């Protein structure tokens, strides 16, 4: 398909300042077993192309699921018309923006064991984990799933740019719900929104600890039923990677998106408490805080070679020793803001234009072992696995909840607590960072479901993090 698209684009490309074609073809299949019953097996093929035109200072795009000659011709004409209509009325003079002319190939890592997708074997595995969940009549619902996606993308520019990128994603999911009286508790593998999503093949199931997880999560859901509510008060908070991924995402990732800072998202996803003048000198967090945009970790969900404006992706520090250095902004935002960013201009598919998105946004490991961090806590709570998230439109006042908590008293892990929640303010929260876990506490997480943009887009992001300890956090439980 790539070759026929190349030929068509060569034939049809208009005489304009800049024109690109981004073709996406994505095949997926999802298997789910709920309460030992295979749910309707679903698969899909989604293919289409977006034409982008920049001409005489204007900008326009047009996308179509019709990738025949006639379909692309129509898209080119519409993109040109919008570029003409926006000339002199755009938020930026696009003639001042030079997009790259990239060339190359990117591929997700090959599976080390060479195992291929076998529907029958996977259904057997899901059935096995599903049956393993049914350990008690109080376990009232449960399901196990695996979702695979193969995505191929071709990016062409009118001046000869040509990038092919081939991605393979695997997205496991497993959750069990227990009920007793008015209380219902759910425990999951990596969260109910597929936190163990990664690039690669079936090896991701091993990496996620999928085998044997059914019984474990069901038992933990029962344990939560028997547990007291999380206590309330100001105390230490030890966050494990399954919650850290959400903390990073909401209170570092979104505030650092340059398009938010420039105001594009104010009508929908919101603005940011971060302003352009903060970069280079604002102390975002404690000295222990080191945050990277890292598209180079092969197994991580949002690794890639180039973003959707053709900029090459390179690992970059955004926050170093607590100091804010650089925003998450692609080529267009960088030109508008007059500052360096990263290659994160991304679209969720062929039918949405690229905007500034998180990709892999990670906290670098520190030097504290988990037992050392626990020993240092006089009174606190360990929280794991996000279940609730809410933050204001400037990405400042947040409140997050977790599936699972454990008390920490006098340097020792104590009993389980349920409904653990905490709240804080981004601008001060990261300064209360007391310790950053070492490599042994580090895990690679992500989500397929980051929403943003007008028109709206749900995109894949990755967040790797060690366990982190924070001091004097407002913690509370359920009613």
């Amino acid at each position: 398909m790539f070759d026929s698209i190349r030929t068509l684009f060569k034939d049809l490309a208009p005489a304009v300042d800049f024109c690109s074609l981004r073709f996406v073809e994505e095949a997926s299949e999802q298997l789910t077993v709920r309460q030992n019953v295979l749910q309707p097996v679903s698969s899909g093929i989604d293919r289409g192309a977006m034409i982008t035109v920049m001409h005489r200072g204007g900008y326009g795009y047009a996308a179509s699921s019709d990738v025949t000659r006639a379909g692309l011709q129509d898209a080119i004409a519409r993109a040109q018309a919008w570029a003409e209509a926006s000339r002199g009325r755009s938020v930026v003079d696009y003639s001042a923006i030079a997009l790259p002319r990239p060339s190359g190939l990117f591929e997700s890592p090959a599976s080390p064991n060479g195992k291929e997708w076998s529907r029958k074997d996977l259904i057997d595995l899901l059935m096995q984990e599903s049956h393993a969940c049914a350990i008690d009549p109080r376990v009232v619902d449960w399901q196990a799933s695996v979702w695979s996606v193969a995505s191929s993308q071709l990016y062409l520019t009118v001046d000869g740019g040509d990038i092919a990128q081939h991605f393979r994603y695997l997205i496991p999911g497993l959750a069990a719900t227990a009920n007793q009286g008015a209380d219902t508790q759910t425990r999951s593998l990596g969260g109910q929104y597929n936190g163990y999503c990664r690039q690669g093949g079936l090896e991701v199931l091993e990496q996620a600890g999928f085998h044997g997880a059914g019984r474990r999560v069901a038992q933990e859901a029962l344990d939560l039923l028997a547990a007291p509510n999380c206590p309330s008060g100001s105390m230490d908070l030890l966050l494990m990677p399954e919650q850290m991924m959400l903390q990073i995402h909401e209170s570092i990732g979104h505030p650092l998106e340059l398009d938010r800072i420039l105001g594009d998202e104010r009508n929908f996803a919101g603005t940011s408490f971060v302003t352009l003048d903060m970069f280079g000198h604002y102390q975002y967090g404690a000295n222990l805080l080191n945050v990277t945009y890292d598209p180079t970790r092969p197994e991580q969900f949002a690794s890639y070679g180039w973003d959707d404006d053709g900029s090459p992706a390179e690992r970059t520090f955004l926050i170093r020793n607590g100091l804010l250095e650089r925003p998450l902004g692609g080529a267009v935002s960088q030109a508008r803001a007059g500052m360096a960013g990263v290659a994160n201009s991304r679209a969720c598919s062929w039918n949405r234009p690229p905007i500034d998105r998180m990709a892999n946004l990670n906290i670098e490991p520190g030097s504290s072992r988990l037992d050392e961090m626990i020993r240092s806590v006089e009174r606190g709570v360990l929280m794991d696995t996000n279940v609730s998230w809410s933050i204001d439109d400037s990405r400042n006042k947040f409140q997050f909840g977790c599936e699972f908590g454990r008390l920490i008293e006098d340097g020792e892990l104590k009993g389980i607590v349920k409904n653990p929640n905490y709240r804080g303010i981004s601008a001060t929260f990261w300064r209360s960072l007391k310790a950053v876990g070492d490599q042994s506490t580090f895990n690679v997480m992500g989500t397929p479901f980051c929403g943003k943009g007008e028109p709206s887009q749900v995109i894949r992001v990755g967040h790797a993090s060690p366990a982190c300890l924070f001091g004097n956090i407002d913690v509370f439980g359920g009613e």
Partner: protein
Amino acid sequence: MQNYFHDLAAFLDTRLKGKEQYTCWLSAEASDFVRFNRSAIRQPGHVRQIYLSLHLIDGMRHAKTSTSLAGNLESDRPLLEYMLNGLRSRLPELPEDPHLLISTEVQSSEHISASQLPETGAIVDEALTAAQGHDMVGILAAGPLWRGFANSFGQRNWHQSASFNLDWSLYQSRDKAVKTTHAGFEWSSAEFREKFANAAAQLAMLQRTPISIRPGAYRAYLTPAALSDIIGMLNWDGLSEKALRTRQSSLRRMRDEGWQLNPAVTLAENTADGLAPAFQNEGFIKPERIALIEQGCLAGSMISPRTAKEYGIATNGADGGESANSLDLAGGALPQSRALQELDTGVFIGNLWYLNFSDRSNFRLTGMTRFATFWVENGEIKAPLNVMRFDDSLYRMLGENLLGLTRERELLIDTDTYGARSTGSMRLPGALVKELRFVL
């Protein structure tokens, strides 16, 4: 598009083998999306997309697949063959599905609204002209959309409309703004200018020095837009019959323990007056109205065909996700014009933002105030309020603490464009509550 879909279905009819049956669902649109920032164009464009979901059934074995299509049957035929063959080859390795329920009673329907939209460029011109001298940011989405259902029993359903949705904010500074939506099927310049002028007039209020309040319980008035975020949380499995049966619904205490909301609360899925198609993607027809909460008591739920089969009950045409598309909350006795006077002293909430559960068992929600939210004293707006986080239970907000619902209601057309332009809507009044708990 309708002819294309019918030809496509006729083609599928000829490709079935043995006792195979199929259902298919078409979701298509041709949308202009024009994004604004700082009263200028940020990203203008056009998206033409056609998606088909195909469901092949052989006895109690079945599988689904979906694909994007060109919209030209000559081009699409090989892909349709490929889809069908792929499903056919998959079925033997799948177990029989005890929860499969298909619609065999043929109930065809057609709803076609001819487009009355002007050229999108004309709307853009009006928006940019009005925005001069302001800081406007937002999105215009406009164009036709199509939904179709067909099955091998001969049922054909078609829903076609052309709509626009201009959703914009006027910013005063930082996070202080007024948000407005102008949406419908027929563009009215006069109505747009009136809405824009009303929003611009509110900006004057936002110029006042903002007030910060301490955490605590405050009397509050929620506009219909603000209330829509709270009511929208019912679609997070609250109204789902499956979630109620598995004790995961946030309303489970109403079902299991007889908990009630305020008797003023009567909520329905009102398909007859909504914008969504009256058929779902497996071909079941939606009733005109489903009573969900009657005078504060849980009266119904959204029941998908699959849940119906699993629990041996009747479906009411809910989609697989068992969420409502056209929620309708009955109005009350409070005239909207008296909302500020009745609020007296407290918080006037124009919009809420980013709601989530803090304790689902007790339907306790947290979220933020946003946009035009004001501190009111003695029935008069004093100043904009800096954003506050609330954390409170629906059972309190719309239960013992509900003082009244407004007589007037607003039709709120969903601006959601995830994957496709939404056909959802809500018709809601405003709500006056005795106290709302703010925590940060």
